[in-house]
């Protein structure tokens, strides 16, 4: 037993370090999970005269995506959002974060618009209430407006297939 002690200590350390390496420090746990969406009352990007409130986005399970035209990683996830939009499975809402209107319009015209509605968060205050720190970010929200899941960074196929879609579908059943 004694000669194996260093080996055991090393093995123990190796396990701890492997666990540590598997964690992702960029994924900060959101305290909003399980809470109602932070309320906002903000202009719609596509119609400045109209104000959007959080209650307008309840009624169905939805995906709320924080994006901007200056955000390079948003381009990466956009095809996935467009595919989800075309499948018509769940509504996608957008929060356009700290963007210029013209740039946002141009971006939507070029890349396509998967959003049922978009909030124009020009100064980022809505983002701060939602704990946004790394655009793009996506939230799964249930029909009552409670946030169920948050993903920081561009959506990927595995995240969509394994985490987000099952969650959205499960809520639809309720």
């Amino acid at each position, binding site marked *: 037993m004694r000669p194996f002690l260093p080996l055991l200590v090393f093995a123990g350390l190796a396990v701890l370090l492997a666990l540590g390496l598997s964690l992702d*420090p960029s994924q*900060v746990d959101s305290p909003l999970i399980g809470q109602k969406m932070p309320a906002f009352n903000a202009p719609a990007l596509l119609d400045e005269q109209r104000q959007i409130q959080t209650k307008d986005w309840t009624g169905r399970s939805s995906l709320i995506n924080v994006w901007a035209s200056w955000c390079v990683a948003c381009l990466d996830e956009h095809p996935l959002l467009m595919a989800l939009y075309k499948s018509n499975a769940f509504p996608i809402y957008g929060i356009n974060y700290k963007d210029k209107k013209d740039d946002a319009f141009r971006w939507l015209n070029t890349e396509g618009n998967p959003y049922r509605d978009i909030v124009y968060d020009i100064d980022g205050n809505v983002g701060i209430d*939602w*704990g946004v*720190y790394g655009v793009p970010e996506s939230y799964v929200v249930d029909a009552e407006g409670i946030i169920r899941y948050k993903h920081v960074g561009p959506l990927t196929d595995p995240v969509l297939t394994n985490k987000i879609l099952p969650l959205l579908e499960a809520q639809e059943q309720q």
Partner: protein
Amino acid sequence: MIHQRYLACGSILFCMLVCFGIAASSTVIDESRLSAPQLKQYQSLLKELRCLVCQNQSLAESSAELAGDLRIIVFEMVLAGSSNEEIYHFLANRYSDFVLYNPPLKAKTIPLWILPFVLLLALSLGVFFYLQKQNKKNR
């Protein structure tokens, strides 16, 4: 998979450029509007809050855009007379306790605080008993 790694590296590089870039002076925060104790409160708060974009820097150090936005919020709250507690709660409710450099003493974080001391004690005892054994052998 590989594409994602390039994206991650690119994002990290971009992040580093942003974080170590020259901090632009903000014209919105006018420190002269704060009283002397408020100024002290404001400056010490900025050192105690973490920038979530550049996670190794405090709000005082980081030149990330979000850090600028949060500095404005801290400034406005200090100006309005909010306590440190109220400002912590405002930010932690949105960004989690990770925004505080000193994690609060909760059930979750007790191991974090205690473990270094426990380890130190365990290792000291281990070394002590080992040396004792060596002594006995050598006699």
